[in-house]
């Protein structure tokens, strides 16, 4: 038995936690990659805004786009609902009302992280402390995940969590691919020297570098990276891996017949991509299409479990 209201909070709690984690990974990797590149080579911080889907929100409040403004906006700005600190606060706000459902240590980990990010947000902006701050966000989310996977019954509450997490994760992978990968595929020839570093960055921002290397045993090239991040079912951050987990979660939740069409629509859209992810523009458009499918899936989840479960 799971209350509709609680299901909604679990779903969003999971999404916001995942969003905080994903944003932290992307900002951390971006910082590292830019430090590796010589000055003058594509050293713009603006793609970060695009990955986070926050370009318009940022431009509304900022005249210029330098590193610390952008990083502060994405990490420490409470007014930006998509920032790391906001995501953590929203996760906590949702999970506050699910404390009787989640293992106690999970709530404690979320609460710890909230207290830390609320207090030390500025250390996520300063270059010298940024990595430590972002790593703490990531590892605390891993702690929550570990508590749940090691200590929670595989009941409806767990599946709601997994559902929210997988949808959010798929969304981030498509955004990284749609912005970063598409930009690299379309990039002019002269940046080729640093291609490998850049593609490593794409993998790193999804914590996929090591797994990519193990899975492919080959050099790091654009086509291989895109294919891995889209289709490798065994990698949990690939779109295919997320689709698999979404499908599993929905099969264990009630009303599968109502939710199934949305996930199959997403799977079909992914399957159609096998042939046409070759150039930047079409990759970008394809990722847009997947994001639309994810958005529809989100609406279906809400209609099935929250607003229309009568």
């Amino acid at each position, binding site marked *: *038995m*799971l*209350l*509709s*209201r*609680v*299901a909604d909070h679990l779903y969003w709690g999971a999404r916001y936690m995942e969003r905080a984690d994903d944003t932290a990974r992307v900002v951390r990797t971006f910082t590292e990659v830019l430090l590796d590149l010589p000055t003058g080579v594509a050293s713009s911080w603006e793609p970060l805004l695009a990955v986070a889907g926050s370009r318009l929100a940022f431009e509304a409040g900022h005249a210029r786009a330098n590193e610390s403004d952008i990083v502060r906006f994405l990490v420490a700005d409470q007014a930006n609902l998509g920032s790391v600190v906001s995501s953590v606060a929203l996760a906590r706000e949702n999970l*506050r*009302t699910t*404390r*009787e*459902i989640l293992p*106690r240590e999970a*709530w*404690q980990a979320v*609460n*710890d992280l909230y*207290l830390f990010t609320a207090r030390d947000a500025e250390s996520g902006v300063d270059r010298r402390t940024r990595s430590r701050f972002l790593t703490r966000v990531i590892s605390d989310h891993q702690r929550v995940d570990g508590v749940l996977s090691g200590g929670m019954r595989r009941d*409806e509450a767990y599946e*709601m969590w997994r559902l929210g997490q997988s949808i959010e994760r798929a969304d981030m992978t498509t955004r990284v691919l749609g912005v970063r990968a598409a930009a690299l595929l379309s990039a002019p020839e002269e940046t080729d020297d640093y291609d490998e570093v850049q593609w490593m960055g794409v993998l790193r921002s999804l914590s996929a570098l090591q797994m990519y290397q193990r899975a492919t045993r080959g050099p790091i090239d654009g086509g291989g990276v895109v294919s891995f991040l889209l289709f490798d079912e065994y990698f949990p951050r690939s779109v295919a891996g997320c689709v698999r987990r979404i499908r599993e979660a929905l099969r264990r*939740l*009630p*009303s599968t017949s109502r939710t199934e069409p949305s996930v199959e629509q997403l799977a079909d859209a992914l399957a159609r991509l096998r042939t046409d992810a070759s150039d930047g523009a079409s990759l970008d458009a394809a990722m847009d299409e997947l994001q639309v499918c994810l958005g529809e899936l989100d609406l279906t989840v809400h209609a*099935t*479990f*929250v607003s229309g*479960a*009568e």
Partner: protein
Amino acid sequence: MAQLRTASGFWDELIDGTGDPRPAAAALVEQLKELGLSELQQRQDLAELDIVGMGITFTVYSDGRGIDRSWPFDIVPRIIAAAEWRRVELGLVQRLRALNCFIDDLYHDQQIVADGVFPDHLLEHSVNYRPQCVGVSPRHGVWAHVCGSDLVRDADGTMYVLEDNLRVPSGVSYMLENRAISKRAFADLFARQSILPVDAYTDELKRMLTSIAPEGVTDPTVVVLTPGVYNSAYFEHSFLAQRMGAALVEGADLVVDDDDVVYMRTIDGRERVDVIYRRVDDLFLDPEAFRPDSALGVPGLMRAWRAGTVAIANAPGAGVADDKVVYAWVPDFIRYYLGEEPLLPNVPTYRCLYPDERRQVIDHIGDMVLKPANESGGYGLIIGNRATKEELERAVADIEADPRNWVAQPILSLSTAPTLCDGQLEPRHVDLRPFILSGASHYVTAGGLTRVALRRGSLIVNSSQGGGSKDTWIVEA
């Protein structure tokens, strides 16, 4: 730390009049001296970190916004000897048996009024009497399933009942959390001596709630009904639901259908609810029956309850016995319904309605707390030794003019317990709230929640007003 300081004129819970530890507190006092103040302060600091990390909070309102504050905790426990506690327990159970007889009687034949023991005009004035409850018969005749009674100790060591909270008493989760924290702080003492465990409470609560399910329901679905996350006791609602494995629901999660059955809205459709442990006040339970503007409630809940398809704890209307005037009659209830003498005294309460008691009040007005019956929240309260001559003269005139509206109690000297304040151990005033469960049988917590007024001389133990809390140890001495 040569000797623990006490305040003259007050009973101290750990130290006797000669400065020696009371027998049940001997091991603790010895340990405090061994530790010294700086080590004790370190343990206090660690405890406070635990509280933040465990997310033990209460909510206060500021600028229209609920803010979570960490639960204020003092590391020095308050100790009661087990032998004394057993007598208190018996007294509390006796009290609850009588209170439940009284409530049940009021909503049925009102025999106690007919017999002239309880004046009927008091009922007419009662703000907590609910005509909507007349004729309902909850199982076991129990209306007040969860009671938090506040106990205070006077200068001579006598433990009195100050009031019975029969509506939605809170604090029990903090009692449990305080124990979890103090076990870490004084692990060796717990290992060496027999301190009664408190952890059974949530199991006992679940057992009690199961015992009041509608007839024929063997494995009832129990839920905890909360006003929501902005309620000051939300932490506790969530805590209790979690410990009982019950769903924590808000009004909007429940629906009463035309069949007068309560259902909750789940991701798989509607599911029947058998027992509701409600932490919502009567008037917000059901907009059909009470306040039509309440958004917290469940339309039709009273219908379902009256039809007997769902049990509600505490029963609607139970608050009629939670009233400072009704309080004065509790010893009479014990004699009238049970034929027993009260085991645990009320604070002597003079009812100005009766001429001889009124005389007592007026003759000793400087030593009395005067309480008007129809005011709540301490409004209109007059404290004899702090009022001016004019105020007292006016009070006498008011009493003479409308004696039914007044009760009075002697001013008590609340006991103290050593408390860590700014790195020093200082005597601070304490009270105690044990919790009593009544269903098919009775259960009393081993001790309860000790609240402490952290400011010197203050008697205000409320956590929203600078009060703190202590773990309470019932020790076999």
